[in-house]
């Protein structure tokens, strides 16, 4: 470790001005408690700004809680991963910090046979179990879709009287809210049902390659394993198909000269337009259940609710087609390259036994990897898309009932607090008096908004407390790209430099102007040929990758979603630089060397 061997303690990291009392926005167990100072300061926490770069509104903590808890349950209680339990996590000043929980060394050996039996069963029956997984997830989505929230009626429906139901709509409203939360919880369990094992098998192949071919670029290993047809890229592919159809049906003027609403109504006026509209509708289910965010924030925008987002991407594709550009993903080339790389590494192995091991490990990695790549679409995009849509439906009920002004305001309350709002609303309705909410909630929303805004004005710390000598927790290495070296570079990040090091995530070298993007909403400011610099990229920013030259992120490993997508788009990318989004300013001329993981500021804007 370096001269500075320790990060600040969370207990010394005070809230920004105006954010005092932020702890009440989150459950008691998710914040650092004063009487546990000694215990908590003994743990090393790093900020997961890769997944969660923004401050959480109180309700949004729900998805985080579910995700990290469910990840943990599989390690600790289902597979009994010998050396690794779950991940402890805390919110501090609005950001999420994680701490991997190691298994007591004395207990590790006893867990091995259990892990063999439990994980072994899943590996052996992977395809069947995964088929079933798809059914289970679709079932959850259908159940969520069936839930609706409406304003309470003036009187109970006559039919309910005649059927002798004996309940009122507030019962169903509360029940449905609880059910929606339950379904969200369930789908996060499913999220991790295969993921940890998928990473374990991938890591096994990864480790074998690192040992057999010392110095092998991480990229090579990823390329050998990565699939060619990936569901996560389907939404983008659908847009390309729609762009091509617009060209084929001579509808390019309609697409280019109109906004989404005008274009859709003009399409109704011609036979060709109707054909295009039918294809547009067809693509939406399920592929427009896709967000430019990451599915964890209530503010994430899903295409299906913001048709202008996919439509504008189609516009860009149509323009590219008219300029004679090829917009197809080079699927055959990607497949051929994958085979070439695999064959050449395999041929570099001298012993037949090691070649056999290579085949076996690669084979398993390829069986499990489609899940690693695709689960994102089914959970973060599709399931969470429906979840947030239903939550907004509930929120609009509260807007109409005068509790809140805007749909987003509901998310300033914790999930158990929303039960109180529901009961207040139903109670007033039942008694025939106004609910208290409209006189209480708006002030509380305003107070909490100020806190969240104050928290958002300050970036998170990379980590807290004393880091371990070596980072060994397998999933932390794999998923978060957090290594002993990256931790050390965070420790030294006080020294500013015009050169940044990161992971060589996607090869190639380019120079260009940087555009620093702080949230998905700013993506529209990106100009053709700029270099995207951001704390973390989401793979769902898909279509913007057609515009940019390269990507630089603060955080992210080799298999972070961002790295996968950059490789797919053939863009140079350097991930995990630690501080690019703060050291680089929009307009700086920079050089990105994705083959060596280096970024250099050539000219300051």
């Amino acid at each position, binding site marked *: 470790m370096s001269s500075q061997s320790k990060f600040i303690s969370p207990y010394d990291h005070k809230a920004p001005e105006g954010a005092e009392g932020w702890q009440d926005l989150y459950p008691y167990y998710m914040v650092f408690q004063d009487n546990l100072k000694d215990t908590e300061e003994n743990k090393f926490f790093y900020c997961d700004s890769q997944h969660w770069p923004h401050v959480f509104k109180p309700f949004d903590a729900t998805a985080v809680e579910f995700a990290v808890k469910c990840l943990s349950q599989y390690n600790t209680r289902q597979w009994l991963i010998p050396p690794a339990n779950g991940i402890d996590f805390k919110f501090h000043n609005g950001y999420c910090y994680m701490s991997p929980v190691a298994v007591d060394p004395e207990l590790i050996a006893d867990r091995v046979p259990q892990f*063999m039996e439990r994980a072994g069963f899943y590996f052996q029956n992977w395809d069947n179990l995964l088929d079933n997984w798809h059914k289970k997830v679709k079932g959850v989505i259908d159940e969520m879709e069936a839930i609706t929230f409406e304003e309470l009626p003036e009187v109970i429906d006559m039919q309910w009287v005649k059927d002798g139901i004996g309940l009122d709509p507030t019962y169903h409203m509360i029940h449905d809210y609880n059910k929606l939360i339950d379904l969200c919880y369930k789908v996060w369990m499913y999220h991790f049902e295969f993921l940890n094992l998928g990473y374990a098998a991938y890591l*096994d192949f990864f480790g074998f390659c690192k040992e057999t071919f010392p110095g092998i*670029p991480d990229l090579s290993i990823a390329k050998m394993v990565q699939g060619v047809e990936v569901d996560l890229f389907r939404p983008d592919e659908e847009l390309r198909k729609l762009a091509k159809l617009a060209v084929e049906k001579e509808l390019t003027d309609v697409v280019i000269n109109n906004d989404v609403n005008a274009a859709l109504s003009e399409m109704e006026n011609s036979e060709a337009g109707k054909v295009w509209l039918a294809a547009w509708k067809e693509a939406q289910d399920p592929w427009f259940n896709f967000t430019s965010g990451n599915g964890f924030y209530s503010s994430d925008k899903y295409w299906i609710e913001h048709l202008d987002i996919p439509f504008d991407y189609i516009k860009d594709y149509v323009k590219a087609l008219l300029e004679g550009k090829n917009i197809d993903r080079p699927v055959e080339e990607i497949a051929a390259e994958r085979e070439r790389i695999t064959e050449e*590494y395999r041929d570099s192995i001298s012993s037949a036994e090691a070649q056999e091991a290579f085949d076996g490990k690669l084979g398993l990695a390829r069986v499990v990897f489609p899940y690693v790549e695709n689960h994102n679409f089914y959970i973060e995009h599709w399931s969470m898309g429906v979840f947030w849509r239903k939550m907004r439906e509930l929120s609009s009920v509260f807007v109409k009932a005068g509790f809140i002004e805007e749909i987003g305001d509901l998310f300033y309350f914790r999930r158990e607090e929303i039960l109180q709002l529901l009961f207040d609303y139903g109670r007033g309705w039942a008694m025939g008096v106004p609910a208290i909410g409209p006189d209480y909630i708006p002030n509380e929303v305003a107070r909490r908004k100020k806190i969240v805004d104050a928290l958002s004005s300050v970036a998170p710390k990379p980590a807290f407390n004393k880091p371990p000598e070596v980072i*060994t927790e397998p999933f932390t290495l794999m998923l978060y790209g957090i290594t002993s070296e990256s931790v050390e570079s965070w420790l030294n990040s006080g020294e500013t430099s015009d050169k940044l090091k990161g*992971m060589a995530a996607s090869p190639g070298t380019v120079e260009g102007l940087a555009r620093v993007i702080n949230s998905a909403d700013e993506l529209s400011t990106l100009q053709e040929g700029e270099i995207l610099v951001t704390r973390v990229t989401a793979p769902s920013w898909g279509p913007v990758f057609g515009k940019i030259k390269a990507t630089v992120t603060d955080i992210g490993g080799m298999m972070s979603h961002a790295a996968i997508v950059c490789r797919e788009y053939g863009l140079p990318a350097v991930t995990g630089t630690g501080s690019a989004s703060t050291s680089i300013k929009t307009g700086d001329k920079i050089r990105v060397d994705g083959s*060596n993981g280096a970024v250099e500021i050539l000219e300051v804007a």
Partner: protein
Amino acid sequence: MNYTLFFKEAKPEEYELLGGKGASLASMSAADLPVPFGFCVTTHAFEAFMNESGLTKAVVDKVNCIECVDVDHLDASSKEIRDLLMDKPFPKEIEENILAYYRELCLMAGMEKDLPVAVRSSATAEDLPDASFAGQQDTYLWIVGEEELLLNVKKCWASLYTSRAINYRKNQNIPEEEVLMSVVVQKMVNARTAGVAMTLNPLNGDRSKIVIDASWGLGEAVVSGEVTPDNFLIDKIMLNVLNANIQNKHIEHVPDPANKCVVTREITGERATEPSLTEDEVIAICKMAKVIEKHYKCPQDIEWALDADLPEGENFTLLQSRPETVWSQKQAASNGSTVKTGMDSIINTLMNPISSKKS
């Protein structure tokens, strides 16, 4: 009748006209291995010269009369035969042929004339491996101009009748009638940068890597260890440079065509510490190294040069390629350590995670 053949143009059935060395260069060219380009003056040319000069029988008779035990007699006869050859003029057609090919060689190097070439003898004798003749014939370096070239071609022919060569054939009972001579004419490599490339990592035997040592000038400086060369480690499959170790290279060997020799020169200023290869050049060398390895079907130890006379992208020149022996033998001898597979391996991976992914 083909008196001259470019390496590239010779068909396999014509290889016997090229002598051992010429045939080897022709077959490497045919496999797209970038040997320094050139041509052979074929055995047909030698035969035609001997016949048209009326020397064939006279020479054979003379040789048959030599008593090798009498060294003085051997030397005297040898000189007599060689003088005989040197005195005879070239048949017109052969001379025109050689000069036309030389002119084309000049053009290939972007020169109008006077391209420095190496002229080497390439003998053939039925039922005898070329190696037996190794060192028995002559090589003439930094030959410049048409007149010099013709003179040295003839010298190569004459070198078939040195005392040692005659003595060797007599001892081996090789009939004089079966001995023919071809001459190789090859561009001298004007190395800007030269060195070696191994198609495995010599430190650990990893065959997914290529290691390159490179320094300014001719390769002698690297091979002899007179300079610490720039060292590059490259992933053979992805063709990216994993590690570049740039050294202070204080001397270089460069040709001195006027004196037909190589001189050692000190390197001063920034050039000494600048990389002797650009990244693109490193990659180009690796691509060729892969072709060479594929051709020989085993890891290779390659001597190469970047020829300053040739355009960028076409300047890689293969000087020599040998099979790598150290690791190839080691790997053949060991049965390899036991590799864990299946669940055992996954457990092992989880219990002993690689501590850092950046290596």
